[in-house]
C-alpha cells in the first residue's frame, strides 16, 4: 500500500462509517474491498494478469462460500445480490478501459470486455454447480483445500512459478523465454488462501457459523487486511461486521487514526530508512568487516519488524475506523525472554493458524497413534515440522526451509531446557532476582538467536547464508 492508497482508504472508510446507514455499510465495505483487490494488485509482465489474479481471488472466495454456505441459503436470495455485485465489480474494472480519464484501476489496461463477460459466466456456472451439488459432500471442501494448497505450492516454488509463468505467457502470445518466478505477484494470496482454508476446515468440523456471501466476501477480501494480513478467524470477524460489538464511531475514529499514524511512521519513516542499510544479498557480499556485517543484520531485523508491524498497525487502524477490530499480529516480539514467547508475539495470527490446523492435530494424532513414543519425540516432530511449514509459507526454497528448521530446533531446545531447569533448579526460578537475571539473559539469547535466524531468511540460498555467518564470526 502506498501513502496515497492509505489516504484514500481512510477517506472511504470514514465516509462509509459516518455517512452510511448501518444496514448499507456491509455492502459498501464489500464494494470497496472488491475494487481495492484490483487497485492494490502489483503489475506483472504477463499481459492482463494484473486483472486476472485479483479476479481469481474473488472467484476463489465466492466458490469457497458456495461450499461452506449455510444449508438454508437455497431458500433465500441474498447471495444473488452478492453475485451481482461481484460480477459488477469485474465489469466496472473492465469498462474503465473505455474511460481514458479514469483508466485504469489495475496497473495496466484490463482485458477486452468480452473476455471478462466469458470469465464471469464461467464463474457463475462453476458457482451454480458447486452451490447445487456440494451440500452433504465432504470431498468438495477437501478438494477446495487441496486446490488452494496446490495453487499455493505453485506460487511459492520458484521452479513451478516459472513454469506457470511460461504457460500463461504462452496463452497470451508472449515469449516464454522471458518467464521468471517473479512474474506472478498475486496480491495477498498467502493470506487469502489461509482464510479460505480456515473456513473450509472449520466447515468440515462444524465449527463455522452461518455466513452470507456478502459477509464471507468482506471477511476474505477486507481491504485493510488483504495485502499483509492479519489472518483473522471468521468466528471473530463476524460479530464486528454485524455490528454486535461495535463501539462508538468517535472512539473508533480516534483510536484507529492513532494506530494508522503509528503504522505510517513505522513503515514509511523507520522501516524505509532502515531499508537503505539492511542486509541483503548484494551488500552481504560487499561488507568488508565483521562489525559492519552485524550492523547490517541488526538493521535488517528492525526493518523487518517495523515494516511488517507498521503494515499491521495500518490494517488494524483502518479496520477500527470501519468498526472492525482486527486481531493483533505483533506484541513487542524482540523483547521476549524466550523463543516460545517470541513465537506468541511475532506474526501471531499465522502462528495461531498453524497451531490450530497443523501442530495441534499432528501432535494429538501422534500421541494417539504412538502411545509408547516419548513425549520429547512428539514435541520435536511437531515443532520442527510446524516451523518448517511456516518457513515454506514464505516461499518454497532451501533458505526458508533452513529458517524454519532453525526456529523449530530452537523451540525444541527451549522446551527441553525449561523441562530440565524445572526439575533441577526450581529455587532460582522462584527467587525474584534470579528470575530477573534469567529473564534478561533469556531475552539476550533469544533476540540474538532470532537475529541470526534472519540470515537464512534474507539470503537467497543457504550457501550465501553460510558466507554471511562466516563474516559475522570474523572469518
Amino acid at each position: 500500500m502506498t501513502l496515497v492508497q492509505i489516504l484514500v482508504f481512510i477517506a472511504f472508510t470514514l465516509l462509509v462509517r459516518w455517512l452510511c446507514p448501518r444496514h448499507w455499510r456491509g455492502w459498501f465495505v464489500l464494494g470497496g474491498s472488491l475494487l481495492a483487490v484490483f487497485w492494490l494488485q502489483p503489475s506483472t509482465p504477463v499481459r492482463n494478469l494484473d486483472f486476472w489474479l485479483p479476479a481469481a481471488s474473488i472467484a476463489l472466495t465466492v466458490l469457497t462460500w458456495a461450499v461452506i454456505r449455510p444449508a438454508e441459503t437455497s431458500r433465500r436470495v441474498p447471495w444473488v445480490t452478492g453475485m451481482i455485485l461481484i460480477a459488477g465489480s469485474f465489469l466496472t474494472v473492465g469498462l474503465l478501459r473505455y474511460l481514458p480519464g479514469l483508466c485504469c484501476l489495475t496497473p495496466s489496461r484490463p482485458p477486452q470486455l468480452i473476455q471478462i463477460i466469458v470469465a464471469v459466466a464461467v464463474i457463475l456456472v462453476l458457482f451454480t454447480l458447486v452451490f447445487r451439488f456440494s451440500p452433504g459432500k465432504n470431498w468438495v471442501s477437501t478438494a477446495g483445500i487441496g486446490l488452494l494448497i496446490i495453487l499455493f505450492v505453485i506460487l511459492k516454488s520458484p521452479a513451478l512459478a516459472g513454469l506457470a509463468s511460461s504457460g500463461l505467457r504462452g496463452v497470451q502470445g508472449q515469449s516464454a523465454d522471458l518467464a521468471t518466478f517473479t512474474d506472478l505477484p498475486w496480491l495477498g494470496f498467502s493470506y487469502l488462501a489461509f482464510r479460505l482454508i480456515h473456513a473450509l476446515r472449520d466447515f468440515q468440523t462444524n465449527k463455522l457459523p452461518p455466513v452470507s456471501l456478502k459477509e464471507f466476501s468482506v471477511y476474505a477480501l477486507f481491504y485493510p487486511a488483504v495485502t499483509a494480513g492479519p489472518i483473522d478467524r471468521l468466528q471473530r470477524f463476524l460479530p464486528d461486521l454485524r455490528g454486535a460489538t461495535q463501539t462508538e464511531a468517535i472512539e473508533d475514529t480516534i483510536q484507529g487514526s492513532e494506530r494508522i499514524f503509528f503504522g505510517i511512521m513505522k513503515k514509511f519513516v523507520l522501516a524505509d530508512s532502515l531499508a537503505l542499510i539492511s542486509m541483503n544479498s548484494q551488500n552481504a557480499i560487499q561488507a568488508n568487516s565483521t562489525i559492519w556485517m552485524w550492523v547490517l543484520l541488526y538493521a535488517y531485523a528492525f526493518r523487518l519488524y517495523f515494516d511488517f508491524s507498521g503494515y499491521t498497525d495500518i490494517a488494524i487502524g483502518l479496520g477500527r475506523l470501519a468498526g472492525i477490530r482486527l486481531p493483533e499480529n505483533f506484541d513487542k516480539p524482540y523483547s521476549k525472554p524466550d523463543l516460545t514467547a517470541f513465537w506468541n508475539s511475532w506474526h501471531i495470527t499465522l502462528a495461531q493458524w498453524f497451531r490450530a490446523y497443523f501442530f495441534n492435530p499432528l501432535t494429538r494424532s501422534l500421541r494417539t497413534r504412538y502411545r509408547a513414543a516419548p513425549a520429547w519425540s512428539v514435541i520435536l516432530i511437531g515443532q520442527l515440522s510446524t516451523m518448517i511449514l511456516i518457513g515454506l509459507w514464505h516461499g518454497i526454497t532451501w533458505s526458508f526451509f533452513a529458517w524454519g528448521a532453525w526456529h523449530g530446533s530452537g523451540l525444541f531446545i527451549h522446551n527441553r531446557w525449561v523441562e530440565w531447569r524445572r526439575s533441577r533448579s526450581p529455587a532460582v526460578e522462584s527467587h525474584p532476582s534470579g528470575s530477573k537475571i534469567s529473564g534478561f539473559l533469556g531475552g539476550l539469547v533469544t533476540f540474538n538467536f532470532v537475529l541470526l535466524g534472519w540470515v537464512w531468511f534474507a539470503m537467497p540460498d543457504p550457501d550465501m547464508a553460510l558466507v554471511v555467518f562466516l563474516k559475522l564470526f570474523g572469518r
Partner: protein
Amino acid sequence: MVEKSRSSAGYPKNLRFYADVLLRALFLLIVFNLLYAALSPGPLLARISAYNLLFPGRLRLPYGENPERDYNMSLSSLEAMFASHEISGKPKSASEFRVVLIGDSSIWGFLLPPEQTLAAYINEAEIELPDGRAVHAYNLGYPVMSLAKDLLILSEAMAYDPDLIIWPVTLESFPEDKQLSHPLLQQNPDKVRALNEKYLLDLDVQSPGQIQAPFLNDTIIGSRRSLADLLRLQLYGVMWAATGIDHEIPEVYIPRQEDLPADTNFHNIPGPAFNTSDLAFDLLFTGQRIAGQVPVILVNEPIFLSQGRNSHIRYNFFYPRWAYDDYRQHLSTLSRENVWVYIDLWDAVDKDQFTNSAIHMTPEGTRQFARLLIESIIEIAGSSAPALE
C-alpha cells in the same frame, strides 16, 4: 463547563476536546514552520554529520544516480556534501601540503572506484616536498560539466585552506547555456547569486531555475525533501563504511562512440570559430580571483581522439574539430596573457583508455593523467614561480 466523559478505554468522548487538540496541533505546526523559515537552520543542520566521526569521510563528493546500488546519492546542500567529505575530517596540519582538485566527472571518477581516481593516484605517489610537507590531494570533482559549478565548489573549498588548486577543464564545460542548467546550481540560487554579485559575473540569475524560492519553500514542509536527503546521506554513510563503495561500476557499459555523426555544430554554433560571448572564459578569471594567493594549475583535460567514421571533422562525440581547436587556442592565449599556470593534456592519454565517454578514463588512463600532474605539483609546490607552460 465541558463535560469530560470517558469511554471504557479511557478515551474522552467529547468532540470539543478533539477539536481543541487538533487546533493546538495546527497552531504548533504553523509556529514551528514559521520559526524554521525565519531562522533558516538548513545550512547549520547540513553541517551536522556522522561522517568523519562514526563513518570515514567520503573520498569524493556525494553523487549517485542509483542510490540503492551506489550507496551514494546526489543532493543539493553543499554544506552537507562537504561535511561528508574527508576534507572536513581534520584541520590541515603543518606537515600537509593540501591540494584540491575540482572539475567534472572525469575528476570525480565516473566508472572508477574511489581508490582509483585522479586524486587517489596522486596520493598513491606519496609525494614529499623538499620542506618535508606531504602532498595530500582531495577529490572535489563533481559530475556536472559547468564552470559555474566549479566556481561554486571552489568557493566552498577555499574554507579548507588549500595550498594548491588543480582545475582540469574541457570545452563542454564552457558553453553559456550549460552554466546554470544543473539542479545543483538551480537549488543553490543564493550562493550562485552571491558569486554573481561578488565577482560581477554575467550568469543569467533571472532564469526560471534561479528565481528566489517562495517563502513557503523555506518552511519545514517546503524543505522536507532536502531534510530527508540529509538523513539519507547519513544512512548511506553506514553502507559507505561497511563496503567502501560509493559508485556502482557495471561490468558492461556502452563504450564511447568511435563512429561519429557528420555534424560540425557545437551547441548550435556552426563555426568555423567562436565569438567571444559563446564560451564562458570569464569564469576562469573568476576562479583565479576566488583562489587569491593560492596557486592554480589550469589543465585542459585529456579527451578521446576517435579514428572512426567522420573523425576528420570531429575529434569525438562531444567536439567538432574546429570548435576544439579554437577553444584550445583561446585557452592557451588567455593563460599566456594572464600568466596562468596552464597544462594542455588534451592528447596525453591513449585512446584505448577511455570508457563510456570522451572524457571518462580507465584506471590506467587516470594513472597516466596523474603521472603528468604529479610532475607539475612537485614543480609548483617546490617553487613559487608559476612558469610551467
